[in-house]
């Protein structure tokens, strides 16, 4: 059962990373236009890098 001392913190930390990442996506307005973003994948016009 000693393995739990590693596994539980690891699972919590990994989950926490996921949460932090979500907070980041929320902060950068990534949920403002879900439908448009889904459609834009099909667009022929793409950029080599993100717009400034």
């Amino acid at each position, binding site marked *: 059962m000693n393995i739990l001392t590693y596994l*539980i913190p690891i*699972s919590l930390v990994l989950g926490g990373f996921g*949460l932090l990442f979500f*907070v980041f996506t*929320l902060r950068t307005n990534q949920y403002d236009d*879900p*439908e*448009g973003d889904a459609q834009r994948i*099909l667009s022929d*016009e793409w950029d080599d890098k993100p717009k400034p």
Partner: protein
Amino acid sequence: MTAAMRPNMSACPACSAAPAAEDLASRAAQKDARLALSLPTIHCAACIAAVERRLAAEPGVISARVNLTLKRATIEASPEVTAEQLVQVLDTIGYEAYELDAGTLSATATDRAGRELLMRLAVAGFASMNVMLLSVAVWAGAADATRDMFHWISAAITLPTVLFSGQPFYRSAWSVLKHGHLNMDVPITLAIVLAVATSLWETSLSGEHAYFDAALTLTFFLLAGRYLDHRTRAIARSAAEELAALEVPRAFVLQDGVEREVPTAELKVGDIILVRPGGRMPVDGEIIEGTSELDRSLLTGESLPVFAEVGQGVSAGEVNLTGPLHIRALAVGEDTSLHRMADLVAIAESGRSKYTSLADAAAKLYAPGVHILSALAFLGWLAYSGDMRVALNIAAAVLIITCPCALGLAVPAVTTAASGRLFRAGMLIKHSTALERMAQVDTVVFDKTGTLTEGTPELTNLADIPADMLSLAAAMAAGSSHPLSRAIALACKQAGVVPEQLSEVTEVPGYGTKALWQGQELRLGRASWLGAKTGSQTSAWLKLGDAAPVAFTFADSLRTGAEQAVKALQASGKMVCLISGDTTDAVEAMAARLGIDNWMAEALPGDKSARIQTMAAEGCKVLMVGDGLNDTAALTAAHVSISPASALDAARVASDIVLLGGDLSPIPAAIETSVSAVKRIKENFRIATLYNIIAVPLAVAGLATPLIAALAMSTSSITVSLNAMRLRG
């Protein structure tokens, strides 16, 4: 409305940590996003690309970005680019566009309440997944010290999460309890609190059952429902608010002979305002210089322009047609007749018969039922076993199992799917119960001017006019922006008429146009000016020299989809009526053209709403479709109401649903969608009840385990959501 939407800046630690940054960001957005357009007809990647490419190609436009979810484009451009210009540009490539006020826009762009909910949802999701992992280990057979440790870790995760994520429920429950009422949030709060409390107690006594996972999944599912609900409503609300900005945002004030552009909000009584042809009156006032004609169709439903001269009063919302007018402001802002009408509507609104939404009806049955059930279980077990701990555990289990996960999702999941579908069809549901009310509709009442018709005239007697007169008229009409002239010019262009060469074409504001042709005077204008007899139909006259004047008659052109909408509604067994403030002849002709038997002409605003109230008293569920100020009372009186995007602010505020485009054809489909939405909601209630019927006896009998609770909760929530998804498409 904006104020009501704002969340009270609260315990979301992340939000309150950086309010300054958010403020800064929104201010930056306000500066950049100078123009915003509503694009009701866009729907796919090709539309996005076409619109963005065309806008970007326009000189002066720095960048253009389309938001498909909100169906709008934000454009950053140099100051000389105007929204009207971009609207026209988009029109040439086949997209309808309406200007939005970027100021109002930035106020609602960052949806703080939505983000806050999303954050709580994410935290609840994260916590429930972790706790569920631990719980699965317990259910799989972890025992003794291991189980206790797992429970303690679960508790450590659950407590802060429940405190943070559950706040919307606690707040809502507290506010209704204060007033001695019950809503769905009371049993939810009680279930969460009781589940956490008994689980803590059990854990401290090394007990076998802990409901930490249940408390968290409950929060998670309910927050999901809350978020869906919020999202649907926030989109509708912000869009409605921004459309409101279609009202004249700027006016030209004359000060010491100098013309100055000021926002309408800053106008004062006594200001001299210049209203150009084509402009809308920003205030109530009196004409002090100029003659013209006024289009009052939005206020009264009259399709015929009215002559206007010095000394005459004008009301905010009227459109100036031919000559520039100087008006002295007599009432501004909140005091204008436009706003007073809106206030009347607000009063009518408060007296409107309250419709109890299906969710409220369910909650009314449900909330007391659950409390009584779990209290009985508690008392029963206390009497039977005499053990407080057992009794409390069972009472908690009953509350958790009956907790309205599925009920909480049943309505928002369906309304989200249905509103999404209607939004794609070009309709905006403003009111939360509009969908349910629309499902009951059996009578549809249309207004004429501006609703069934475009409000722009169309030449009807082209074939009766001699060819030489036509080419003269075409030349006369070409130079004028009067709606009747434009109708003549359009009809002549379509018929291939070659305009004559004229000289000295001058517009006589308020009367018509005059010119010289081969030495003879030629005049095109209103009957009284040319000595012709005024008929009942909308008409203009053309007079060459001393010859008898030739009549040009007009009818309002039908709005796109009006015919199909009326046909489809009649085919589906609805009674269709036409009530208009216009003249009997015009209304009769329109009714005959559309095959509507039931019509009423020359109706005053009061008549319209009275007629609708009579219908309602006879047991009809009336859907009112109207756009004018004269319709607002009727829109409010009706069971449910729709107004087009071109409608006046007050009419849009009064109506439950706003059509985003100019097309009326989505209305019958919308009624169908609403009927099936209500069907799905009722199905969902039945599904949720079924799960309760199976699980509650187990809980009361003390046989429920956290595993059974988790299974019942998740399966019912998922079934309900999947059932709602069937509405999409």
